[in-house]
């Protein structure tokens, strides 16, 4: 049995259908993860004592256990809690929460990289805690971690095939189904791999230009905020140093 182009042509429409689901699922999950991750990061920074340990314990637990099992857990157990989500919603929730725990770490590193001076200046200007976070800390922290967020976005795309295990028909699910029907897995699965490579490249390009555009916009936005910077400090961080870890 060797490569058969006929099958490639046959499977392609199914894969394109799956590709749509993959892209939508990625975007939705990432939107959940970005918001929830920021909330977790800020909560971990402003809470003390038992609540802090609870939050960081739970995020550690989620980070340390496989996403697949978490998806099964949600998929099979939410109905018992009288929450009936469609499989797709379950997947978004699982992916969103799992990646939120990753992203919260990223945000935290961004927040921690902001010099203490900024906090002191905010206090001196009589900013409320909310104002400090909203206008001083977060804009800078988020801007500095944008490239890392992009990396996680690309990583998220590559984990979406897990959705097929809870019966969401994304690309891999369509390929497996096609394979089961025709008893030929070589072409479908290889094509899924090729499409993932292409998707990854497109995503990398998008993330790159998005980071650049957002970075520039924020720069203009925060022109007033940047005057808060002390004279001696060098707050321009090199975002690439976060890329490896």
């Amino acid at each position, binding site marked *: 049995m060797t490569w058969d182009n006929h099958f490639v042509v046959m499977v392609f429409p199914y894969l394109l259908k799956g590709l749509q689901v993959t892209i939508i699922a990625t975007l939705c999950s990432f939107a959940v993860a970005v918001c929830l991750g920021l909330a977790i990061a800020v909560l971990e920074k402003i809470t003390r004592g038992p609540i802090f340990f609870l939050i960081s314990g739970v995020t550690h637990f989620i980070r340390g256990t496989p996403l697949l099992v978490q998806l099964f857990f949600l998929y099979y157990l939410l109905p018992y809690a009288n929450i009936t989500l469609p499989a797709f919603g379950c997947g978004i929730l699982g992916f969103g929460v799992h990646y939120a725990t990753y992203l919260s770490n990223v945000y935290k590193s961004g927040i921690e990289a902001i010099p203490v001076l900024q906090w002191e200046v905010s206090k001196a200007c009589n900013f409320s805690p909310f104002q400090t976070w909203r206008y001083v800390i977060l804009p800078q922290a988020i801007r500095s971690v944008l490239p890392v967020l992009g990396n996680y976005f690309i990583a998220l795309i590559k984990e979406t*095939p*897990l959705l097929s295990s809870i019966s969401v028909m994304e690309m891999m699910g369509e390929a497996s189904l096609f394979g089961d029907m025709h008893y030929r897995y070589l072409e479908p699965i290889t094509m899924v791999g090729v499409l993932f490579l292409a998707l990854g490249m497109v995503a990398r390009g998008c993330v790159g230009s998005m980071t650049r555009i957002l970075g520039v916009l924020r720069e203009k936005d925060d022109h007033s905020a940047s005057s808060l910077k002390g004279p001696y400090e060098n707050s321009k961080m090199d975002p690439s140093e976060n890329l490896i870890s």
Partner: protein
Amino acid sequence: MTELVLSDLLRSVLRGLEITVILTISGSILAFVCAFVFGLGRVSRWRFIRVFSVCYIELFRGTSVFVQVFWLYYALPAFGLLLSPLLAGILGLGLNVGAYGAEVVRSAVQATGRDQYEACCALNFTRYQTFRYIILPQAFPRMLPVFGNNMVELMKASSIVSLISLSDITFQAQQFRIRTGQTFLPFAVTLIVYFILYLGILFFIRSVTRLANPQKVKV
């Protein structure tokens, strides 16, 4: 009745744990070897090896580990190569994480200052000596924490092999769910066991990092 169920669950989980641990350890060893071979291959003198390494890294980093494991298990038989699920799992996980590790090795080696190479050149070290006695002792401790993260990723990704009919913990939990109709128990236990594995890996990496303390291997 409950005792029977619990002992059944315990037995299944332990049986699955064995497979997961085997997968994690052999996968990590393969990944470690791949990381070094291809990470150093990327900075090799020979163009062919460089191109080959880049192809490997981009291929395995660009596609999902899920697709790779499935490809090895379902698509490779088309070329007459029938892998057992365990072998397909180890190969898929090891090669995938190895590609990520290769980038870690490359960046750690390249992060070593240029002056170090120049000093080695001045001392008339061979390339092997430069690498073995100067570069590696400095680069290795730098790689370790990231290797730890990669190992955790590998352990977590090992749950995917349950979908190619290898009976790891996740698979056993699924079977238990189907067998008994219990849902909460198997998955909660599975999550806890994975978390314990995670803590174990963290502890292991921390001890190794302490052993490879840069103060001790300073040249």
